[in-house]
């Protein structure tokens, strides 16, 4: 039998070395944020493993699409056609409204709200790390994705880009405990901050006075303060308000509008990609709301 450790340091020394290295990595990465640029390369390096892990799900999806019956396809087609009809009708009204809005804004002297560059991304993998809510999407630095970029789905805001790789990037979800987003109530423009609770179906509003005008069912939209998320996109809906006078603040729980547990396709936005006037626009809107 081979004797253990014929060369190199002894086992306790190895452990001490590895722990010291890990502690150093932890300190540099977490406290000093020293691996921002290295992470891009590391993420690109391990992306083959991520593609490999994504493969079985992809194959299942592919076979499910291949095996869809004609009946299902016809039903889906009918549903989508009717949806398109409804939406295009709304779109017609929307373009008129937008023109009217632009005219009124010009009248008021505030800059016209610019359009934004958008891109569709697809979910690649969901992390199983229970302490942090992150997902990986299939767009990266090559597509112009940048750190802090807002990510949406068809219902509302999903989160923001946390790390960028060459061909994929990592999204921090709204529900993560380290995430918070500035919002306002759509009904009366009260400004609040919605922070993640660590559960996928709940966001918490913290430090809300008892007297704040809120009702169950109120829609919270992004306020545009903080210059990360563009203003006016739905974020969450208030589900419960506990006004216990014995506590300093009201306890408000809300449900995210985006289906954070059923993400498939996502929308990436470039809020600042339409000219120089976007920066003053955001401040003026922030001051007005």
């Amino acid at each position, binding site marked *: 039998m081979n004797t*253990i450790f014929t060369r190199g340091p002894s*086992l*306790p020394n190895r*452990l001490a070395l590895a722990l010291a290295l890990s502690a150093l990595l932890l300190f540099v990465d977490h406290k000093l944020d020293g691996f921002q640029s290295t992470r891009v390369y590391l993420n690109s390096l391990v992306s083959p493993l991520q593609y490999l*892990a994504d493969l079985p799900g992809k194959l299942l999806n592919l076979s499910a699409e291949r095996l869809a019956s004609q009946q299902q396809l016809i039903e889906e087609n009918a549903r989508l056609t009717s949806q398109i009809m409804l939406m295009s009708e709304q779109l017609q009204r929307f373009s008129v409204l937008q023109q009217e809005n632009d005219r009124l804004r010009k009248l008021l002297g505030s800059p016209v709200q610019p359009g934004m560059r958008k891109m569709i991304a697809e979910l690649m993998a969901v*992390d199983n790390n229970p302490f*942090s809510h992150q997902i990986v999407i299939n767009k990266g630095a090559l597509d112009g994705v940048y750190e802090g970029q807002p990510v949406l789905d068809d219902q509302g805001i999903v989160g923001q880009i946390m790390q960028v790789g060459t061909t994929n990037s990592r999204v921090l979800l709204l529900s993560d405990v380290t995430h918070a987003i500035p919002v306002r109530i759509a009904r009366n423009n009260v400004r609040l901050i919605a922070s993640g609770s660590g559960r996928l179906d709940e966001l918490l509003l913290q430090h809300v006075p008892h007297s704040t005008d809120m009702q169950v069912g109120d829609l919270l939209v992004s306020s545009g303060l903080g210059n990360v998320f563009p203003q006016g996109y739905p974020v969450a809906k208030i589900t419960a308000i506990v006004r216990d006078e014995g506590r300093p603040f009201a306890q408000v729980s809300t449900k995210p509008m985006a289906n954070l547990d059923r993400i498939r396709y996502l929308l990436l936005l470039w809020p600042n990609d339409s000219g120089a006037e976007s920066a003053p626009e955001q401040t003026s809107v922030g001051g007005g709301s």
Partner: protein
Amino acid sequence: MRLRPFAIPLSIMTALVLQIMPMPAIADIYRPDWVLLVLAYWTMALPNRVNVGVAFLSGVLLDVLLGTSLGIHSIGLCIVIYVLAANYQRLRNYSVWQQAVIIGLLSALYHLILFWLQHLLTDVYFQFDYLLPVVSSTIIWPWLFWLLRKVRRQLRLS
């Protein structure tokens, strides 16, 4: 056999892929610690080839793949693998179910280390769900042990 030098890296690679594979939310909380289990087997079988150093490298890879701060998983894996490597001769003589219980305990230690480190860095709170992988790891150990022993004997790794 040409596969021989790649058997251990390949098995660790497979464990990493299994660790990050997307799964439905119900099954996800029961996901066994594949990387820990595979490293534990190789440490017990061939402690001269796999020990703390390999655990450190796989831990860093796991950190990159899971998006945690670099070093968290490597600390957890290193400590657990150290315990195994220091006691491998005794553990080898246990029956496979006794080993499974030991592995379960070590997996609980691993998850607690991860939780403590995360708690130190960010405000996460303990939920009992975090310890569910301990159960599945304990249950899966005998089968993984049997499979990897088959691989080792087939390829005559030593």
